[in-house]
């Protein structure tokens, strides 16, 4: 059998000259910035080319690569809901070369975005079920997209519970939205900070996220749990959820492996047979257990 040199897409399709440059980002303008917590910012990005924006679609859970021109690209989830049209939002912590360059940007500045990449939360399959979202620290952004998505389709679901924790009160992100969610009658929000992280006027809970979830004991029948947070929080929350009766394929999380291309080519996010950028970032606990722990 003869092996072909350029297989798959390029072989059957067009010559290279007709192929798009998959590394070319959309040019985006920063429409709004919000300082969420120390070193954590949210950008609202609008397409400079309105026609591109009109064609653009994504689904909740997907991510993209954001360019700070002159510095490079960095990977974050799309933190806004696909039900909110005309813009995307991302939230990032200032950590490295690119995120610090992004943090220096202001309203009106240009950044790049390419995506959306990766799989999505299967919210269509969750119809009729109750949802519990468990998030820690800077990991609320990936859940924020799906939470808003579900709130915008509120009649599809049973109870919606959000448990969100951070190390200290200062580290809580989306403070305005937390207040909004707290006021809503059609969902329950529990916010907690780690012991020692409370401020004098703190009215929420004090305690680690897994303990709070355990004490809350949300019903697990006809329910889906979505967990996102630092590795240690995920590690300790999963057994709690299982103990509460959530089955492995009703527990979802997202992985945040290092990525460069987002297209399954650069090799970085490869974990076992899975490429987080293509097969993920959303995994059920059941799927996660088939992967080696290289995430």
């Amino acid at each position, binding site marked *: 059998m003869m092996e072909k040199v350029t297989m798959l897409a390029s072989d059957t399709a067009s010559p290279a000259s007709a192929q798009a440059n998959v590394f070319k980002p959309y040019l985006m303008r920063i429409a709004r910035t919000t300082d969420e917590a120390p070193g954590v910012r949210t950008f609202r990005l609008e397409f400079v080319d309105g026609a591109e924006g009109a064609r653009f679609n994504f689904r909740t859970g997907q991510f993209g690569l954001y360019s700070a021109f002159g510095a490079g690209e960095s990977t974050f989830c799309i933190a806004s809901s696909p039900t909110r049209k005309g813009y995307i939002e991302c939230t990032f912590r200032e950590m490295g070369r690119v995120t610090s360059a992004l943090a220096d940007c202001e309203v009106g500045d240009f950044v790049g975005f390419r995506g959306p990449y990766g799989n999505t939360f299967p919210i269509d399959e969750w119809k009729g079920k109750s949802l519990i979202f468990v998030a820690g620290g800077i990991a609320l952004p990936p859940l924020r997209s799906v939470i808003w998505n579900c709130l915008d389709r509120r009649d599809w679901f049973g109870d919606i519970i959000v448990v969100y924790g951070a190390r200290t009160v200062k580290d809580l992100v989306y403070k305005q939205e937390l207040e909004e969610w707290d006021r809503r009658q059609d969902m329950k929000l529990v916010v907690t900070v780690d012991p020692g992280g409370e401020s004098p006027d703190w009215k929420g809970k004090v305690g680690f996220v897994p303990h709070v979830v355990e004490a809350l004991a949300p019903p697990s029948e006809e329910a889906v749990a979505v967990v996102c947070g630092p590795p240690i929080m995920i590690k300790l929350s999963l057994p709690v959820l299982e103990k509460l009766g959530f089955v492995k394929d009703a527990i979802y999380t997202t992985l945040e492996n290092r990525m460069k291309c987002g297209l399954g*080519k650069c090799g970085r996010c490869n974990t076992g047979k899975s490429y987080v950028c293509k097969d993920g970032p959303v995994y059920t606990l059941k799927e996660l257990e088939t992967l080696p722990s290289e995430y």
Partner: protein
Amino acid sequence: MSPEYQIGEGSLEALFAAITADGRRIWGPRAAAGCIEIGEIRSAGELARDQVHPISSAKAAAFPRVEKILSYRMDGKDVAIDDPPLPARPTVLFGLRPCEARGFCALGTILNWGTPDRFFNARMERTTVVSIACTRSDEACFCTAVGGGPDHPAGSDLLLHPLAQGGYDVVVLSDKGRALVALAPDRFEPARGAARIALAKIEAEFQAQEITEQLPRLFDHPIWSEQSLRCLGCGACAYVCPTCACFDIQDEADARRGVRLRCWDSCAFRLFTLHASGHNPRETQGQRWRQRVQHKFSYMPERLGVLGCVGCGKCSRACPVDMDFKEHLTEIAKFS
């Protein structure tokens, strides 16, 4: 496959001249500071043919070690993005070993997975691969263990078989190969069944299938840390490998303009997977070595339908601490 043509030793120079006159650059094995590497050659006399393999990889012709994938201009707050022009310079890779030519199959499969890679494809469209069947091999070779062989045709446009009288039988494998013959038609005579020098005999000490079957159950085995104890964690193996396609993306810019570059990278580097938080999913060299083997022999066959190794042994020859790929794979295959 039977040869259509033969070409005399004395005609190579004229063929090279015809290729150059056609505006193509010729890359092939050449002597350089103490080793044989792949590089530009301007005459047949420069072509090195006594080595089993040049040390560096010909993949650079289609997947350069640094390539521009985007450029942009900045003027104050304004930004304009430019698509870099497609690479145009046609290349003839002359004198590759068939295994290295076969590497382009895996390379193309990785880079075109899901979305076509226009930069690789544009270079590949303009690249003609002329390989020479092996009449010699060395201890690092194991092409026959991974489905190849000393005259395996995959990835080549022309395959040359050395003749006892000098010169080569020429097997035409593609239209690109045919077009190359057409550059100097009078230099190619019809094949006359002249005696060939015997092909190298490369005993297969394992079969790739055995490795693929073994790997899932060996994942947590100490063999990885044991084999990689002497590994220094450099990228030599990946950078000479005909199929290693992992890359990094880096911006280089000043205040007014910038380029986005795709650069070779390697899973052997600790930084490859290091998160900004300091967490590293593959913290030890054993985990990184395991990734290299698993990726080539388990993940790629399953996900891409192609083996990530052509058995050329270039990694073994390039390794400063003699991480012998064949030896390690044999050990894995025979594990029970």
